[in-house]
């Protein structure tokens, strides 16, 4: 399974792919480009990745979370390239027979993906552009 895409994310398709007839709930999380960051206006974000390592790292996180929430089914897609305000950068779907595991797994996934997956973003606004997290 590939977890990275250069195209817009089809979240409904992702839900359809995950849902089983035994599932009574799903949680869909989408991260969306907002028009501000740290008090500055944002117009677009360019996402870059160390692709093969990012694929492996997302797969590793999914394996870990699947062990912690054994009844959850999981799908993750992260978009790369140039995105604009309102675009979704990531979609995570977790389904399970009961809602608790879906909520828990989804929260764990987004939190861990943000911590270790080698993906970077360059924010662009009227005042210029910069790589988020890099202290000059």
């Amino acid at each position, binding site marked *: 399974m590939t977890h990275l895409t250069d195209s817009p994310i089809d979240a409904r398709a992702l839900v359809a792919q995950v849902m089983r007839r035994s599932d009574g709930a799903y949680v869909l999380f989408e*991260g969306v480009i907002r028009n501000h960051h740290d008090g500055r206006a944002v117009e677009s974000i360019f*996402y*870059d*990745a*160390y692709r*093969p*390592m*990012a694929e*492996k790292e997302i797969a590793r996180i999914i394996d870990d979370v699947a062990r912690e929430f054994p009844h959850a089914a999981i799908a993750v897609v*992260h978009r790369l390239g140039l995105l604009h305000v309102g675009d979704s*950068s*990531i979609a995570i779907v977790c389904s399970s027979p009961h809602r608790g595991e879906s909520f828990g797994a989804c929260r764990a996934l*987004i939190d861990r*993906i*943000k*911590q*270790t*997956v*080698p*993906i*970077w*973003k*360059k924010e662009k606004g009227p005042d210029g552009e910069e*790589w*988020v*997290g*890099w*202290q*000059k």
Partner: protein
Amino acid sequence: MRRVKVRLLCFAVLRDITGRAETELELADGTRARDVWQSLRAQHGQLAAYELPPMTAINESYASPDQLLRDGDELAFIPPVAGG
């Protein structure tokens, strides 16, 4: 002295600073990832504040900057990640 060939990958801010996505390095046997970082720092003043690389990856897995580099390794320094 024996030499090892290592492929250095630069992403995001590091690619902007070094101007290169990929560099073939020939290093003395016994070179550690952190030694490569120090030579990058010596070449690029914008890295001065980073005494150690933010994170290090060898062959697509996170590794210690103290790891010895072997012939054929793929080395990447990972700036602060910002996915999601």
